[in-house]
């Protein structure tokens, strides 16, 4: 659940207001910091972190937990802005950020085969 809006970084651009798929944020007034107005509608999708141009948002990975660590700990964790960097969100389209993506299907399938072999071994042993 959305848990931290770093006011000292926020520029009041309202990109989170505009892009949140469940309208969790509302504008905070001219040039102001947006307000987390509807936290119960948050679906823990992290897309506001991708939308924020200055890495001022942090989503708690627990869908029902709106608490955040103290600011210093949060910044030290390296997690603020991390998913945007991992996505290569602001990189040029030819930067190769999806060069591993073709492996998704084969890895899914390989995992199923591993689980299937394991299950049959487990059953045979019982």
């Amino acid at each position, binding site marked *: 659940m959305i848990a931290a809006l770093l006011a000292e970084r926020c520029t009041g651009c309202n990109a989170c207001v505009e892009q949140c798929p469940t309208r969790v944020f509302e504008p905070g007034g001219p040039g102001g910091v947006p307000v987390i107005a509807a936290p119960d509608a948050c*679906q*823990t999708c992290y897309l506001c972190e991708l939308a924020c141009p200055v890495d001022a948002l942090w989503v708690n990975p627990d869908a029902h937990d709106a608490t955040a660590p103290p600011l210093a700990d949060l910044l030290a964790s390296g997690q603020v802005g991390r998913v945007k960097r991992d996505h290569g969100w602001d990189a040029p389209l030819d930067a190769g950020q999806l060069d591993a993506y073709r492996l998704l299907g084969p890895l899914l399938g390989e995992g199923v085969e591993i689980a299937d072999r394991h299950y049959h071994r487990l059953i045979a042993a019982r």
Partner: protein
Amino acid sequence: MSTAPLTLRADVLVIGGGMAAAWAALAAAEAGAAVIVVDKGAMGTSGVTATGGPGHWFVPPEGRAAALERQVARTQGLAEAAWMERVMDLTWRHLPTIAPWYPFGSDGQGGRYIQGVRGPEYMRALRRMCVGAGIAVLDHHPALELLADGDGAVVGARGLALGSGEDWEIRAGATILATGGCAFRSGLIGSHTQTGDGLLMAAEAGALLSGMEFSISWSLSPAWASTRTLPFTAARFFREDGSELAIPSLKAGHAHYQALGAALLQGTVLADLSAAPAGLPAVLRQIQPLTVAAFERRGIDLFRQRFPVRLFGEGTIRGTGGIALADADCGTGVPGLYAAGDAATRELVAGAISGGGAVNSAWALASGRIAGAAAAHYGAAKGGRAGPARALGKAGLRPRGSARPVATAPLQQTIEHAIHGLDRALWRRASTLAASLHELDEAWRAVADHGLAADPRGRVELRATAAMAATARWCTAAAAERRETRGIAVRTDLPATDPAQARRLLVGGLDKVWTRPAAPALRGLEAVL
């Protein structure tokens, strides 16, 4: 409803903001139509595609005959080869057109890998394409009800703007419902806004539903939040005391989920990913950054530490049912009203099975393009006229009895349990389906008889609750009526497949729900009210 202060006109109105909505809007605009998109969320982040990673059924022409043969064999007699050919053709031609806006990666052989795309980047690209095509995209503008003229043709919709709280009315020559499936607020990532709104609006206009018994699917995730499932397919499962559970693999389909469900009903189930594919840990972050975040931010090494899991219901999203299509244009049988993507029944290409991600995404793209082109043709002739129109919304907007506050949260819990409760969903049988239907009828009456909300968010939420109740009743009634096991419609009390029931089931009705077998051909379907 008060007089709508914001009034607009278009040739084509698209309701929804996910991939089917975007492809529908693009096809309509390319055909010359003036297009408005209204989305409950925001096009680009709305819906399950935006948080997902949709593979597409992306088959070169020389591979189509074999792909068709395989898919026809899997769909248990309910799909149609002609639709499969159209879907493969449209997907093959149009998916590569996102290239100027999407960072296609390498296929490892010097080319681009096209068939699988990552959700956030894909939906960002589709939004940019829509805006570039001159389509008016109104985010956070949920539609609440359709409008019809004196002949019953749909001529637009009404809704409200979440930002201002103001009502809007849009008159359109044709309207496309691309509102997605319904996950019944299960917590499935990306599905919060997918509450069956389009299905309810379609039914109020006289459209029918089909395939609603094929309505349950699942994804496994950590207990604290729904994620993508890539890391979990090789999981081993343990009880808290360290004893291992024997869970058949995903190859076992329903039996896999039944075994997990039985264990979850008894207590905590821990997943152990230590046997995951050797190549996975190094690339997981590159493929699914958000899945990594769900663990890293809790200080959990997902490949070394066991963690509790849950099953998240996917309702009609990965399930197949939706608005019945009456013709080859994705028309609903109601003049001026079209349906696309998860909002429409996917039986035409997926039959009795889910279809899997690849067929489902191809369906969303292709049905969007088909509906968009047809709606442009129809809508340009009709135009967005300003003549008299009736507002069609009932439950949640215009109570049949005395209006009073209705608490939506407990009703939503009742609805979600009736559909996704592990004890109900994984062991469907006549007695539990009857119990679910009884509970759902009560939830429906609570909203339809008394529900009225004043504030904008309350109105949207009440209407969503009505839509979830309606959708759940159609799912449950159809599951009760299909007296056999076919595909993902599994009946514990009727485990055999009955060749005599190899036909689609239509379901409809609001105050009273009914079912009947579909005629073999989809044309000439009469509206039954």
